[in-house]
């Protein structure tokens, strides 16, 4: 081809294709990306420090605000970590309710994502329909928890609201409709030519690369690797609920879409099973104020992949150190690998393909000019 040199295309921090501020520097040879340098840290919020300043019961609400879309994944992970520190065993019914809320959240998050990817592929009709039907789940949340986005239902020692028999019927009704629609959208995704042309074979991530670069969640499963915290290390009620792990081996944006859509159908089955097998009894036990000294790592499968929280306690009512590793951070190295060699026009859809949530993962690195001292600020 003979391009004398590469051109640098800055992408972000403010860019129409990005929903959040983040910067990527693309080096391009003609229309082909040959190098990617991510630069993160634009939405660093200092939350880990804020965790150390609040008490365990107040920090629950901070954990909920790490991410606006997977709020209950973060609270499940937080409560799991702190309950282990405190030695609290939550009642069985609370475990089931947490599972139901977590899976409803996966429905909500994945359908949001299917809408976004359809929008990035230039298929706005699908985007509109998917988001219209997503309202069914949002309305269920509003009835069950009192909030559409911030559910505030998990608490240390259990859950704050019970699911009444009436609500069970409502959820089932909503799920029946949602399942019908999701099956329809799965058909559209698999057959619609405009969508296939934009996603099939785009953003290839080989299974070897996905595994060695530690991709997580649907990005990893879209490359055919079986990995899901719900199966590998069952938490809350997942150990008692039969479900399938969804993978797809297309390794492209299309298979990531298919994995997420099929996962929605699986989530619907999980919720149905959990509603039918929910044990009766208490929903909450008292949690102590202080946690004895110790440290703990807790993992959950958030809609975007494996989410990890770390907590260290020192016997007081406040954590000594708290750390959050959001799934998007784990997906950045594999994302950069995926972006090598693609056309510039495919960048937005590949970026959207990992379901990025940049604010959840932002880190900051300060380098002293003179001393060359480096300081990291996570989260």
């Amino acid at each position: 081809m003979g391009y004398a040199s590469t051109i640098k295309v800055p992408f972000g921090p403010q860019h129409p294709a990005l929903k959040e501020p983040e910067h990527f520097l693309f080096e391009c040879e003609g229309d082909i990306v040959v190098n990617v340098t991510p630069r993160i840290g634009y939405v660093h919020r200092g939350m880990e420090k804020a965790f150390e300043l609040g008490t365990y019961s107040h920090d629950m609400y901070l954990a909920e605000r790490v991410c606006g879309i997977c709020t209950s994944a973060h609270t499940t992970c937080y409560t799991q970590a702190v309950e282990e520190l405190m030695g609290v065993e939550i009642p069985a019914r609370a475990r089931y309710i947490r599972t139901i809320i977590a899976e409803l959240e996966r429905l909500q998050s994945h359908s949001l994502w299917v809408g976004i990817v359809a929008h990035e592929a230039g298929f706005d009709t699908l985007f509109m329909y998917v988001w219209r039907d997503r309202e069914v789940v949002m309305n269920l949340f509003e009835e069950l928890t009192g909030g559409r986005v911030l559910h505030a239902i998990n608490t240390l020692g259990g859950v704050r609201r019970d699911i009444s028999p009436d609500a069970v019927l409502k959820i089932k009704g909503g799920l029946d409709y949602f399942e019908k629609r999701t099956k329809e959208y799965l058909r559209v995704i698999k057959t619609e030519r405009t969508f296939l042309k934009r996603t099939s074979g785009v953003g290839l991530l080989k299974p070897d690369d996905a595994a060695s670069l530690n991709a997580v969640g649907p990005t990893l499963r879209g490359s055919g690797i079986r990995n899901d915290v719900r199966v590998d290390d069952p938490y809350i009620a997942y150990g008692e609920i039969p479900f399938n792990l969804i993978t797809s081996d297309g390794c492209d944006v299309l298979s990531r879409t298919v994995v997420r859509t099929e996962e929605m159908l699986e989530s619907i089955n999980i919720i149905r099973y959990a509603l039918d097998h929910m044990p009766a009894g208490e929903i909450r036990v008292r949690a102590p104020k202080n946690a004895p000294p110790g440290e703990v790592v807790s993992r959950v499968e958030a809609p975007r992949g494996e989410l990890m929280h770390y907590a260290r306690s020192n016997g007081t009512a406040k954590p000594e150190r708290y750390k959050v590793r959001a799934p998007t951070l784990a997906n950045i190295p594999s994302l950069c690998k995926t972006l090598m060699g693609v056309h510039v026009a495919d960048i937005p859809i590949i970026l959207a393909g990992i379901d990025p949530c940049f604010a959840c993962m932002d880190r900051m690195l300060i380098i002293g000019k003179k001393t060359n001292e480096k300081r990291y600020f996570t989260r």
Partner: protein
Amino acid sequence: MSLVGEALKQLMRKPSTLKYPSEKATPPPGFRGLPIWDMKKCILCVLCQNACPPSAIKLIGKGQEAKVEYHLDRCIFCGECVDACPVDAITMSGQYELAGSDRSIMVLCFGKEKPVIPVKNAP
């Protein structure tokens, strides 16, 4: 092309959206909206103040003069205050149009005499 049938069906349907602000959605019971204090019931135990994660509640004064100063701009609508109150003096109303651009008017006072005394003009 695979959405043609869907699009045709849509012609016969009502819009899925409401014409806000002339049409408003009614929140379901249990919705976490603006918390309201009933100071006739309140026993001034300060449990709500302690339970509030962002410190949006401040109890001031004693006895008949006591007031709850509620900072709407700090409140995250978690409902912890409602759970904490031993005498159910706090209820979360369905009010959700609480956005504003002036923080100085976002302090509401709930006192014993008059049920609600907005500091300036309530939003």
